[in-house]
């Protein structure tokens, strides 16, 4: 057992003990290390001003990804190398050259007030990192930049000059972080610590805080059994926000991010198996060819920073009726494997939810894995996310439709799930039943839409009015009809 965390920041080794372990990473770098280049705007993962690169050991490399430092905790950084905006040019003095990304931002007027700029620079620098630690082979084009920067808000520039800055950068000029820092030496040092679970207790503001970061699921289950009120943390993209807004500041934390095997994602025999701690980035990678429609929805999930931290287990257990993964998991008949004091059990995802954020999950239980039977050839899958803004927005309404058409265009079966229309994600059983055996026509789907609208109980909230959600539920089935048609050349999709 270790009583401290081991991490590097901009190549500097830090052993973190006591209450500092429970700080957010942004507060830690700004207040403890006085690296104030990292900015805090929203403290909820929505603006990217706090973006830093986190290098996690993967094989013989440190694999760097941008994350929002405002909503992750120092304890999650155990065994990592964090690079902040100050760390892009180690040892630089005032008149030394800038990092190529910084240089391009200066030259192309990519900053105005400058408050978003460090975050933009880090997200862009991160986009030049590669799996093998070499130079990115091709420049970033406008599309790649739009994807890479979808989690960074800028109120001043209107982004165009930022895109121009990014496009201008010759990738061969961008030093991979593996070349800027002694990667192997850091890896060796971090690996020494990684074998042991970390356990830290501290007192902050009169409150006792306790952290346990196990290496195996067994250790985790044992700890959870003895600390049923411990807050489980995976990516902390939900928990970090709740912490910062003072909604949930747990005193005991069980950090699953270092549990071996819990982040694995594998597909075999038509089943996709995702460890609870698998991030959306990892799931996005594997589904690109496997289930392109699910992949597409994942590209609309939060931002790169959020997807690099957020996990499927967290999404499921957080249990929001507008969680983007759920409609897909509902129509594919996914199951979760739950590990607890009493052993393991499997539950169909549709049966996991009992009410608004009420789960069939005992205090001593953890979600270990999610299994998804993949859609088969001949089945049509469409997923929908409606939000106020296309990128980086929480859904107002979600839906999934999975269908199989029989001979003569008759609906053999159709599964319909919707989110944001009730306290939990719904399968529309009555609508599904009515659809069975009917001809797949616009008229049928229009009528099904009316039925669907009666099967739901949406509310009015900050994201939209009930009547809007009802109208979306009606329309989405007609939209599905059009989406399922073979696309004429040049059609808008």
């Amino acid at each position, binding site marked *: 057992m270790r009583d401290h965390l081991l991490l590097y920041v901009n190549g500097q080794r830090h052993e973190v003990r006591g209450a500092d372990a429970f700080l957010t990473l942004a507060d830690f770098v700004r207040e403890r290390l006085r690296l104030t280049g990292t900015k805090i*705007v929203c403290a909820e993962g929505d603006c990217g001003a706090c973006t830093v690169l986190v290098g996690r050991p993967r094989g013989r490399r440190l694999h760097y990804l941008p994350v929002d430092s405002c909503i992750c905790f120092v304890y999650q950084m155990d065994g990592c190398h964090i690079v902040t905006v100050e760390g892009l040019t180690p040892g630089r003095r005032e008149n030394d050259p800038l990092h190529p990304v910084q240089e391009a931002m200066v030259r192309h007027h990519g900053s105005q007030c*400058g*408050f978003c700029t460090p975050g933009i620079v880090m997200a862009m620098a991160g986009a030049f990192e590669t799996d093998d630690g070499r130079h990115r082979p091709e420049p970033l084009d406008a599309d790649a930049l739009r994807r890479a920067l979808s989690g960074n808000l800028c*109120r001043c520039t209107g982004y165009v000059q930022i895109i121009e800055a990014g496009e201008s950068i010759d990738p061969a000029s961008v030093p991979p972080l593996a070349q800027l820092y002694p990667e192997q030496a850091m890896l060796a040092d971090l690996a020494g610590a990684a074998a042991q679970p970390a356990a830290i207790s501290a007192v902050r*503001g009169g409150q006792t805080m306790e952290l346990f970061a196990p290496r195996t699921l067994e250790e985790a289950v044992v700890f959870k059994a003895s600390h049923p009120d411990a807050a489980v943390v995976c990516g902390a993209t939900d928990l970090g926000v709740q912490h910062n807004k003072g909604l949930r500041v747990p005193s005991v934390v069980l950090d699953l991010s270092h549990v071996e095997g819990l982040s694995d994602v594998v597909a075999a025999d038509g089943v996709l198996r995702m460890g609870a701690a698998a991030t959306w980035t990892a799931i996005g990678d594997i589904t690109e060819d496997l289930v392109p429609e699910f992949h597409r929805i994942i590209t609309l999930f939060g931002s790169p920073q959020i997807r690099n931290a957020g996990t499927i287990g967290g999404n499921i257990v957080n249990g929001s009726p507008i969680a983007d993964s759920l409609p897909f998991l509902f129509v594919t008949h996914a199951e979760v494997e739950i590990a607890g004091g009493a052993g393991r059990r499997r539950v169909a995802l549709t049966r996991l939810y009992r009410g608004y954020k009420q789960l069939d999950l005992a205090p001593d239980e953890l979600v270990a894995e999610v299994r998804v039977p993949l859609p088969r050839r001949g089945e049509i899958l469409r997923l929908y996310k409606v939000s106020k*803004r296309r990128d980086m927005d929480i859904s107002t309404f979600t839906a999934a439709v999975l269908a199989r058409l029989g001979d003569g265009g008759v609906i053999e079966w159709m599964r319909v799930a919707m989110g944001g229309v009730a306290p939990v994600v719904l399968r529309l059983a009555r609508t599904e039943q009515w659809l069975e055996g009917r001809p797949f026509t616009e008229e049928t789907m229009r009528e099904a839409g009316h039925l669907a609208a009666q099967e739901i109980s949406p509310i009015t909230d*900050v994201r939209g009015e009930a009547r809007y959600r009802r109208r979306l539920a009606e329309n989405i089935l007609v*939209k599905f009809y059009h989406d399922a048609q073979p696309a004429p050349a040049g059609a808008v999709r």
Partner: protein
Amino acid sequence: MPHSGKPVPHDSARGHATGTAPYIADLPALAGELWVDYVPSPLPNGLLRRVDTDEALRVSGVVAILTAADIPGRNRFGSIICDEPFLPSDRVSYTGQPVAIIAAESREAARRARALVRLDIAAEPPVLTIEEACAAGLFIGPRRRIARGDAAAAIASAPHRLEGEFRSGGQEQFYLESQAAIAIPGEQGQMVVHSSTQNPTEIQAVVAEALGLGMHEVVCICRRMGGGFGGKETQAAIPAVMAALVARHTGRPARVVWSKDDDMKTTGKRHEFRTRYRVGFDDDGRVLGLSIEFHSNGGAFADLSTAIMERAMLHADNAYYLPHVEITGQVCRTHLPPNTAFRGFGGPQGVAAIETILEDIAATLGRDALAVRRVNLYGVSERNTTPYGQTVEGNLLPRIFDELERTSDYATRRRAVQQFNATSRTHLRGLAMTAVKFGISFTTKFLNQGNALVSVLMDGTVQVSTGATEMGQGVNTKIRQLVADEFGLPLEAVVVLPTSTERNINTSPTAASAGADLNGTAAVRACAEIRGRMAECAARHFEAAGGPSADPAQVRFADGAVFDVRNPDQRLDFSELAGICRRERVDLGARGFYATPLAGFDRESGQGAPFLYYTTGAAVAEVLVDRFTGDLTVERVDLLMDIGRMINPGVDRGQVIGGFIQGMGWVTTEQLVYGARGELLSHSPTTYKIPSIGDVPRIFRVAVLDNDLNKRNIFSSKAVGEPPLLLAVCVFEAVKNALTYAAAGRPVPLFIPATNEAILMALDEAAKSRNAPKESGVAVESPVGVP
């Protein structure tokens, strides 16, 4: 080589990109510094009976909790109407209003204490909407009127009439750096305040008021802001006063940095506007008479609301000649945070109204809206007087329209849009071109002044400071270019100092797009004065050294050197000359002052010439709407502006693009949602959606009419900060245009913002009106049935 006219990088760009340019929150902690937080009112309206701080004061680390009773000076401020307390003493006026200030050793201690302060408030029913305020007769300032001719008669006798109601919602400034200040107590009760403010003089004044000091005992410094957009023109005052009060009471430095949620919940925003109108027009869509009645939601206190309403009224014509017109405006008092300046300052609300009226006229007549706009456009030599009597001089709008119509391929694309809408069952496209004619100058005449302090140091380097504050708009960069050119120096030889009331006094806010105009001119005047003295000295020196007879008029400053044009080989380094000047006791410092030559506007009569010139332009947007979800995509924008001769094309291009995208947010995704207590529900970027990078149109062509026709302003440039924001109205009108196709060619009512939700609901309306029988006859009913 001159620097002006070149796209040199922002003078803080390297600091921005490396994270080394500090903002208030980044400044190192001072010894003994306290953290400042506040207790917001949970209710919008009620008598404040007691503030119970006992329990909160027991939290370890809490040093003081201050309320209105602890304000030693005057507890009232307001730059136009003095009606706002720093802290309420007897009644709360909006949800989120700061009621008590907490000073603590740490952020965490302050946060804990905040939850323990108990407010005893006798709740009273709030007035939240324009309608409720009108019904209750709650207004701020008088009802204003600008009129020409006989609007009522012209409307009555027009061949076609339309009447209706149009609304535009508020908008959060969403500067990334939230309100922040540090107060440092000095000797003999003096106070130094670092503030993220667009208006250091105002901070100096309010801190002096609140502390009972003279302005001479307070210094305010602003190095930079992480964005302002109008939101820090007046509303930096309360946070600065919070820090100053704590510093005064504890004798310790105090820092306040609001969280984004607190900032959004507590500060004012762009005003929501309601426009009721009646318009009469001919078969071509030419407006014959227009009557417009504006109401804005001012919030609880006056702030700048009356000036904002004035600018809205002065922009109700936008680019169009209105022969018979009556414009009235009234600010409503409600129990929301006091609404305030936001880029455009009422202009966007006025422009959105007239552009929407023209769009509806076109739909009503079944004409292309561009043709309707064109027949109404201000002329070059006739039909070029505004409703308030100012002539639109040097009007380039007709040229801009012609050029943009051609370069955007408007006609071809109009046909493509028609064809697409006739065949697509899933989507609709819309296309619209709108204009902007933005009046440059504060409409309050006395604010049109600037001062600058220029110091040439004996090593030949230059420090300059002005009253302009740097919020990202690049004003310091432009001033640096202008000053370097005045002395023929490299940019590196000039530093623009932080804005400080120690150097620049009695300044106006950096606002109204006039920062570079006013302060740049003042700086250049100061340079000219110094240069004159240096030229005299140099001329004497050249003559003594065997050169031509001393004639300062022949002395030139270029490429870091000074010479007489008649004998260019005899040169002095600028630094050498600075040294000589010092030894010869020549004054190398000067203060420059500029007062814009203006006739001014008379608010009582609604007539005058408030503006020095207009910045104009036009833009075309093409949008795609999903018929099933209302999902909106802005596919293409072409934009053309006359911003004169640019001091810095890189900076100006950034202003144009940034302003446009900000305006696009206002008309599309940015929606303020309030609860029944007037509490803002969309109080963070999770629920309040400003444009992200993915919203930038895939095709976005930005062009300017490069010209040096504007002799009225420095470098023949034109102000650029606000006008491009108003061009984003074209996106909204393009959505309206798309909806028309779903309504069999009728106008479809839609308000700003056109969220996906609003669009989908409007599509329902469009479907209904498509099925309704089309009325014959000339008069078309109000789209929303307003009598």
